[in-house]
C-alpha cells in the first residue's frame, strides 16, 4: 500500500512550482488539500442573523461541540478571517457527506458579518481552519454552566444540539442566556424545545431590554443557579458580561473553574500608552510601518498588505500569534507587556516601543 504522503510528494513533483492544492482545488473547490467549504444554505434566524450551512472539504477533521472554525471570506475582493462557533452537532451530514453550520449575527458596520448574513449565496467558497477552542465541556465529567449573551449563545448551542443527538445519561447542563429582546434572540423556539426535551438540561433566557431588564449579577446568578459554584462554567458574550462573570468567580476564588470567550472586539484599555509613531518592522516580509496609537499590529500588517494569519480578532484564537523578535508590545485588553522572544497576539497588541516581528 502506498502512503498518502508518498502520493502527495510524487504529485508535488508534477505540479511544481505549485502546490498540488492549486490544481486539485481548481478541479473542484473541495478536492484541494487546504481546508475549504462550500456554502450550501443560508437560513435567516432573526432579521440580523443567519445560520449558514457549509459543506467542508474531505480533509475536515471533525469537531468537538463548543469549538469554532475560522472562516476566510472574500468581501469586495479582500480576504477576511473571522471565528465562528460551530453550531451543528458532530456527525451532521446529508447523503453527499458531512455538513457544518455556523450562526452569524450581523454587527452594525461589520464587513464580514454583514456579508455573511445578507449577501452570501449558496455555492460561495470559503476557507476554513481546523476546528479549535477550549469551550468544550465534558458533560460526563460533572455539572456544567453556560452563561451566554447575544451571539455568545453559539458555542452553547453546539453543545446543546450534540446533547440532543446523543442524549447521554446523567448530563447536568444549565444555560443562562441573555438577549436584548425576543425578536433578536437566536433560536428562541429551539431553546425552549431543547429545555423541554433533553433530560438534565435547563435553559433560562433573560431579555435585558424588555420585561424586568436584568443583567447578570450575583443575586440573579444565585437565584437562577444556586449551585453555580459546583459547576464548570463557561462565559461567552459581550465584554461587560465577561467582566461581571470573571469578577464573580474570582471573588469566590473559583477563577480556575471559569472559561471565557469574548464576543466583541477589544477596546484599548492599556494603562501604559501604546507608542504612537513607533517603527513596526515585519522582518520576514521586509516591510516597515509606523504604529498609530492603539491600532492593533494585525491591522497595521493587513494595511501593509501582508497575509497576516488572523482569526477571531479579539484575542481568542491565537491564529495571529507571531514571535516578537525585538522591542516591547502592550496587550490592548489589559495593558500587559510582552518582550522580545515572546509570541504576541497581533490582533490585541500595539507597539510600546520600536518592534520587530517575525512576519
Amino acid at each position, binding site marked *: 500500500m502506498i502512503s498518502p504522503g508518498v502520493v502527495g510528494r510524487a504529485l508535488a*513533483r*508534477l505540479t*511544481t*512550482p*505549485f502546490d498540488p492544492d*492549486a*490544481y486539485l482545488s*481548481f478541479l473542484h473547490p473541495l478536492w484541494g488539500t487546504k481546508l475549504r467549504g462550500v456554502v450550501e444554505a443560508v437560513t435567516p434566524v432573526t432579521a440580523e442573523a443567519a445560520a449558514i450551512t457549509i459543506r467542508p472539504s474531505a480533509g475536515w477533521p471533525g469537531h468537538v461541540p463548543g469549538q469554532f472554525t475560522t472562516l476566510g471570506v*472574500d468581501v*469586495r*475582493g*479582500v*480576504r*477576511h478571517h473571522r471565528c465562528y462557533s460551530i453550531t451543528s452537532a458532530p456527525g451532521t451530514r446529508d447523503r453527499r457527506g458531512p455538513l457544518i453550520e455556523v450562526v452569524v449575527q450581523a454587527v452594525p458596520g461589520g464587513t464580514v458579518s454583514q456579508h455573511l448574513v445578507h449577501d452570501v449565496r449558496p455555492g460561495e467558497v470559503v476557507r476554513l481552519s481546523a476546528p479549535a477552542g477550549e469551550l468544550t465541556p465534558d458533560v460526563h465529567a460533572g455539572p456544567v454552566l453556560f452563561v451566554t449573551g447575544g451571539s455568545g449563545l453559539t458555542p452553547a448551542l453546539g453543545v446543546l444540539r450534540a446533547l440532543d443527538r446523543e442524549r447521554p445519561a446523567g448530563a447536568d447542563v444549565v444555560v443562562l442566556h441573555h438577549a436584548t429582546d425576543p425578536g433578536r434572540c437566536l433560536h428562541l423556539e429551539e431553546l425552549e424545545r431543547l429545555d423541554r426535551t433533553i433530560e438534565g438540561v435547563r435553559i433560562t433566557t433573560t431579555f435585558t431590554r424588555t420585561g424586568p431588564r436584568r443583567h447578570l449579577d450575583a443575586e440573579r446568578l444565585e437565584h437562577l443557579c444556586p449551585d453555580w459554584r459546583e459547576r464548570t462554567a463557561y462565559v461567552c458574550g459581550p465584554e461587560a458580561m465577561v467582566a461581571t462573570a470573571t469578577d464573580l468567580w474570582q471573588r469566590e476564588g473559583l477563577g480556575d473553574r471559569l472559561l471565557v470567550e469574548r464576543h466583541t472586539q477589544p477596546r484599548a484599555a492599556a494603562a501604559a500608552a501604546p507608542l504612537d509613531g513607533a517603527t513596526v518592522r515585519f522582518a*520576514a*516580509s521586509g516591510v516597515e510601518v509606523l504604529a498609530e496609537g492603539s491600532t492593533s499590529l494585525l491591522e497595521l500588517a*493587513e494595511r501593509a*498588505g*501582508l*497575509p497576516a494569519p488572523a482569526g477571531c480578532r479579539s484575542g481568542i484564537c491565537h491564529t495571529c500569534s507571531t514571535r516578537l523578535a525585538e522591542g516591547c508590545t502592550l496587550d490592548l485588553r489589559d495593558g500587559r507587556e510582552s518582550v522580545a522572544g515572546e509570541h504576541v497576539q497581533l490582533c490585541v497588541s500595539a507597539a510600546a516601543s520600536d518592534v520587530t516581528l517575525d512576519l
Partner: protein
Amino acid sequence: MTTTMEPQGRTASPETPQAAPAAAQDLAQVDLDALAAELDAVREEVLASLGEDDAAYIRGVIRLQRTLELAGRALLAAGVFPPAWVAGTAALSLSKILENMEIGHNVMHGQWDWMRDEDVHSTTWEWDNVCPSRQWKHTHNHVHHQWTNVEGRDGDIGYGILRIDDSQPWRPRHLAQPLVFVGLALLFEYGVGLHDVEIELGRSGKQRSTRDKLRETFAKVRSQVVKDYVLFPALLTPLGLPSVLAAASGAAVANVVRNLWSFAVIFCGHFPDGVRIFTEEEVEGESRGGWYRRQILGSANFDGGPLMHLMSGNLDHQIEHHLFPDLPSNRYAQIAPKVREICERHGLHYNTASFPRQFGTVVRKVLRLSLPFG
C-alpha cells in the same frame, strides 16, 4: 523642486527622428512636484476603487492558465498524433506565457497583495520559470524598478552582456552580440535565472553568497527540468517511446516559445529608440517627481488590444507599469490615456509605437552597437 539634475540628456539614438522629443527634453524644465502630485492622484484613484471585479479578473486569468496547462499536458499525452502535438504545445506555451507574464510577474510585484489571499501573494508565489522567485524579486522589483535605466545600477541594461546604449564602451566581444541576442532570446529563462547570481558576483564578489544563490537556482532548474522533461514524459512510457518523446519535445518547444515572447516583450520595454539612459549623478538626490520622470523617459509602450494586454502581462503598458509597479495590471490600460495626457502636458515624451516598430529599433540598435563606432 528638489532635484539637482543637469540637462545633460543622452538618448539612445539621437539620429532617429522619432527620438527627437526626448532628445530635446530639458530635464530641468519639468515641474516635478506637480508631476508627482498628478501621478500620485492617479494611483490613489485606482487604489480606492479596487474591488471584487479586479479580484475576479486575476482569479479568472489563473483559471484560464490552469485550464490551458491541463489541456496542454493532456493533448501532449496523445502527442504522437501531429494535430494533438501542435495543439498541446500551443496550449502549454500559452499557459507558461500567462503564468510568467500576467500572473507571476505581477503577483510578485505585490499587485494583488491587497486581496490578502495567501495563495495569490507576492510573499508566496513561486513561478513556472527556472529563476527562483526570491532572486527575481531582488533583481527585478528592487534593483531594476528602483534604479530603472541608471547606468551602473540597473542590471537590466543589456543584462550585462549586450551593448544596448552608446554610452557603453565597445569591446571586441560585442562583435558577437547578434548571436548572443538570439541565444539569449531562446534561453531567456536561464538568463533570468542566472541574473541575480551575476549581479551578486559583480556587486560583492563574495564567493559564499554567490554560491548560495547559484545553488538555489540549480535546485529550481532541476525541479523544472525534471517535471517537464522527465516526469510528464515518463508517465507515458506504457504508450511507447514516441509518446514519451512527443511529450518532452512539446514541453521544450513551449518553454522556448515562452522565452522568445517574454524576451521580445521585455526588450520592447526599455531598449527601443527614444528611451533614455541616466547616469548616477543625474539621479542623485532624486525626488519622487524625478523618479516618476525617469520611469516615463526610461520606458516604452507598444500598441495592442485586450488580447495583447493579456499576453504581454500588460507590459505593452510598460510606462504605466514602471510608474505604478504594484497597481493591478488590469488597470494599466484604463489609466493609460490619463498618464499620456499628464506626460504630454509636462512635455515628457510618451514613447509608444507598434510592436514591430519598437522591436525593430531594438534589433537595429543591437546590430549597430555590435560594431565599434556603431
